[in-house]
């Protein structure tokens, strides 16, 4: 199963990005890692070029807040993205915030799985569960 991943916006947390890449590979995914400082359009374009099933965006410095709002508008421009699973994880707000507020907000942006300050393996477990629910694995 193909996953496109990377760190969104002006965010250079390369270690976290590398760990996500390695963890996904260890779980048997084919990973297309766009690295740090990635624009939203590049994520969607990479999904199109690779035929990926999953888009996993990470954010450590809270920039996801701003980019997330752009997701519905940008995704609507694409004609082949209806079936992808969209996941976002990391530190999803600037400053502090609680998951009860943050998760619904990001789900409203179109993400299927939202992991705010959640351990990486726990987050990837929830991805596996969703794949099972959708009979994709």
């Amino acid at each position, binding site marked *: 199963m193909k996953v496109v991943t990377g760190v969104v916006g002006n965010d250079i947390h390369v270690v976290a990005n590398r760990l996500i890449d390695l963890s996904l590979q260890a779980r048997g995914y084919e990973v*297309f890692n766009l690295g740090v400082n990635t624009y939203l359009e590049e994520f*969607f374009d990479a999904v199109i*070029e690779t*035929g990926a099933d999953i888009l996993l965006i990470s954010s450590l410095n809270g920039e996801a807040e701003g980019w997330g709002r752009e997701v519905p508008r940008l995704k609507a421009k694409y004609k082949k993205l209806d079936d992808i699973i969209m996941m976002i994880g990391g530190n999803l707000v600037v400053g502090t915030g609680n998951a009860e507020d943050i998760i619904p907000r990001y789900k409203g942006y179109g993400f299927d799985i939202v992991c705010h300050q959640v351990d990486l393996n726990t987050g990837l477990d929830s991805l596996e569960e969703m794949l099972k629910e959708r009979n994709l694995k």
Partner: protein
Amino acid sequence: MSQIESPDDNIAKDKQEKLLIDVGSTYFKLSNKTNIEQHFRDFNKSILDDLTHKCGQEIERFDKKDIHICSSANGGLSTLIIGVTHSFSLKYATNIAFNSGINIIDTILFQNIEEYSVPSDLIDVVIIVGGINSSSDNFSESLYRYLNNLTYSNVVFVGSELDVPTIKANIENVVVLPNIIDDRLHIVEDSLKAYLTNLYQQDIEGKEDIKDLYNITDNQIFSTPYVVNKTLPFIHTKYPVVNPFVLLDIGGATTDIHYSKDLVDENIVTNNEYDRLVFKKLGVYKSKQSLIFAAKNNEFVYELLMHLKVTENIFEEQSNKATKVLMQLAIFLVLCKISHYKKAYVNLKLLSVNSFVLTGGITKVLTVEEIENIVSFFYKKILNSEHNPVTVLDNNYDIWTLGAEGKERCQ
């Protein structure tokens, strides 16, 4: 029959002196070991007639094997690229096309192909690209319908291997080359670049005006931007240029920009140190009207005109002053187009630029001070910065000479 040689002939031949000729859309230039001359073209004559009329004596001094010609006057190949995304397939194919010397490029995002009008003019080459090799069904019927309505001379597919059988079954005479996107989403340039460069060479050789020039040379005629691009790694041998730099070649019909790769944050990973970008309707002679149109649509141009102490009436004038202003405007517009102020094919990190190198006809019209005046206006107004890169004028066409000599040495 033996030919009587003049003493001058002997000098040229003994020292293996070369005559380098560059044919542009507005001027042609000749360079020998000691001198460079430039002539405005007479558009009522063929290039060869014009050249022999103005420089016949000089050309006769040389053997055909010692004359090397490059040209950017053939108009270039018209290229249409159909790709599945802006960030990868279209961007990569456009990058390869520019670096192969091609000037005229239009792009189509495949998912919206039905919304694009079909160009009525003949397209020299259509490039179809999309998907890594493990992805499939990147294209559908709408592509074939579009191509059926399009007139083109060549079509090349450089997308996913899995799509090749369908593409071959539906597009007659399609040339299939290796995918330009690898499995890590990186660019693979070589095959498409070689294909386009050859096509471009054939096009140059096929144009009647250029074909005539083989009467005076035994050597292959190259495209000028290709020659200039080859020079850039050696530019420091002629000028105090510090990397990263931007080279602007503002010509009569188009403006060519060559830039250090350090100036872009790109997903394009190549072996080239320098990339090339072309603005096809930005020139100070053949494209003058579109330059003025672009200027009038730029919100800062009136401030710039005030800064230069002229009014917009200058656009209607035919004077040295008007030419100067037009060239200063061209510099400003080009900088706007490659900055973050305007979203273009590339946005360069202009605050990191150490040197601006200007070549082409502009170097005969503007002084370093006049150029620096515009550059600093741009930095203050658009980038809100006091950054002040060094301006270098290639006013003796050393960049072209260096490239042409290097090209000749490589043969």
